């Protein structure tokens, strides 16, 4: 096998592994979300099917598949059909830049445990995830429904606003590292024996808040606010098409969690643990997944704890609090790096 073919096969295998993991996020999170919100609200939740109701997602999936597939008569058909598919595309692409283990030696060849080990790593993640807004906008416009359209308008304004703060918070992390490669950021944290959320606490808080807005989760789920917009941009979607949006939302959450733990919580590394080879790869992957799991639990916890923001409050928070804070953080971090404190 030539070097090019070997790399291609290795990338394919790694993508297959990550895809297999991330496609299972939505069903698992469906169960976690419903059980956790039931626990928070002091009721049992779905507990009939299987042990502790674990097979409930299976039943839900079957229900989605066998429901009638409806297209509104006045919908813009091509865009209406394309939107749910486009929602999945960025969700299942962004995680290719997330490293999930130490370099592995296979048949005398070093294989970095990241699907796409590109120099523009973080930027590629942000660029692809910024394309996710089009599926929301297309769905809202194509449905030909005023609630859908309002949801789409809100989505486009909200995602643009919070993307700025999110990107600036991420940039501040990159300054002391001096590289866009996420593997370098993990290595930097390991070398300094310090996870980034301590020296970059303001940036981390901005990132955390902005990521709730970017994934349309409560308290920022304005594009689908059910108390005012029925279901926002996906009001007219049912059956499997709705399930695709659902899947995209949870996959986006997992991908953004993966970025967050890689930037601020040491990625796949554990403090004081240095393993290599297949064992190191397995432990690295398990560590990354555990950290993502904790982040997802926080997403769920916040959702069932806070009420929804009003739209003007959302915009005020984004532009007048988070953005100036992120810019200030960027300047401070740059100055501290220049002074040699980071």
């Amino acid at each position, binding site marked *: 096998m030539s070097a090019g073919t070997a790399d291609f096969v290795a990338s394919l295998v790694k993508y297959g592994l990550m895809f297999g993991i991330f496609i299972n996020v939505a069903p698992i999170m469906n169960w976690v979300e419903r059980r956790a919100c039931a626990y928070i609200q002091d009721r049992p939740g779905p507990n009939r099917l299987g042990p502790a109701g674990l097979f409930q997602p299976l039943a839900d999936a079957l229900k989605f598949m066998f429901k009638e597939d409806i297209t509104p008569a006045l919908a813009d058909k091509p865009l209406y059909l394309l939107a749910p598919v486009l929602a999945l595309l960025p969700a299942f692409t962004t995680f290719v830049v997330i490293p999930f283990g130490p370099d592995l030696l296979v048949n005398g060849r070093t294989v970095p445990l990241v699907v796409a080990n590109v120099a*523009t790593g973080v*930027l590629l993640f942000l*660029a*692809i995830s910024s*394309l996710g807004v089009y599926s929301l*906008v297309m769905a809202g416009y194509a449905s030909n429904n005023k609630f859908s359209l309002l949801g789409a308008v809100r989505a*486009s304004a909200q*995602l*643009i606003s919070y993307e700025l703060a999110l990107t600036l918070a991420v940039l501040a992390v990159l300054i002391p590292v001096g590289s866009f490669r996420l593997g370098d950021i993990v290595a930097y944290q390991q070398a300094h024996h310090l996870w980034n959320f301590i020296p970059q606490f303001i940036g981390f808080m901005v990132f955390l808040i902005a990521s709730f807005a970017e994934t349309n989760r409560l308290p920022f789920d304005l594009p689908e606010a059910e108390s005012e917009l029925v279901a926002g941009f996906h009001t007219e979607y049912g059956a499997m098409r709705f399930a695709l949006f659902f899947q995209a939302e949870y996959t986006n959450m997992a991908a953004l969690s993966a970025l967050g733990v890689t930037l601020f919580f040491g990625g796949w590394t554990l403090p004081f643990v240095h393993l290599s080879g297949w064992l190191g790869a397995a432990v690295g992957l398990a560590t990354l997944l555990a950290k993502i799991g904790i982040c997802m639990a926080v997403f769920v916890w916040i959702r069932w704890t806070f009420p929804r923001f009003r739209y003007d409050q959302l915009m*005020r928070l984004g532009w007048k609090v988070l953005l100036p804070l992120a810019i200030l953080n960027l300047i401070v971090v740059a100055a501290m790096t220049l002074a040699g404190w980071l």
Partner: protein
Amino acid sequence: METVIFFLFAALAIGSGIVVVTHRSPIYATLSLVLTLFSMAVLFVLLGAPFVGVLQILVYAGAIVVLFLFVIMLLNVQKEEDAHVDRGVQLWIAILGALTFLGMFWLAFWRTGLRIGGPAPAPLTEDLVSLKGLATALFTDYLLPFEIVGLLLLVAVIGATVAARRPDSETVRPDDDYVGDHVIAEDPGAGPVLPREARS
């Protein structure tokens, strides 16, 4: 492999570019523009400039075109109707603009010494297309043009803010909670007061 990808995305860029200017629906035109920009980004990556390609998606496809869509949806622009005005002057100005643009294009190519059938240009070096090379060039050799472009954007931002200001903004403070207290005080429980036509 690279040749196949190049022709695929070059064709996609040109095809979607044509859709942008010819399609009657502004939404479809804008979405085609996204496709054009995405194809261009792929071409940048093929040229060995992944950073420019990623920025193309991040800034243009991911942010600016979203704002286009936002405005189109907010104004609820339906399919373009045939204008009844005489387009004579507009046409000539458009032709003049296109010619100027082509001339500048030709000048740029002429100055680089690139000819059809001539020797192929040297491939871009890593220090030119990498982030560091790009940043160094921007902040040393091209600092003045860079600053002027920044100033131009600032002027545009201030202009937009001034244009968007309501004339009576002295009395209406948009930051205040806009739940009109006079409406509630007048008629509690009846919701906002609607004009006579809307009530019936």
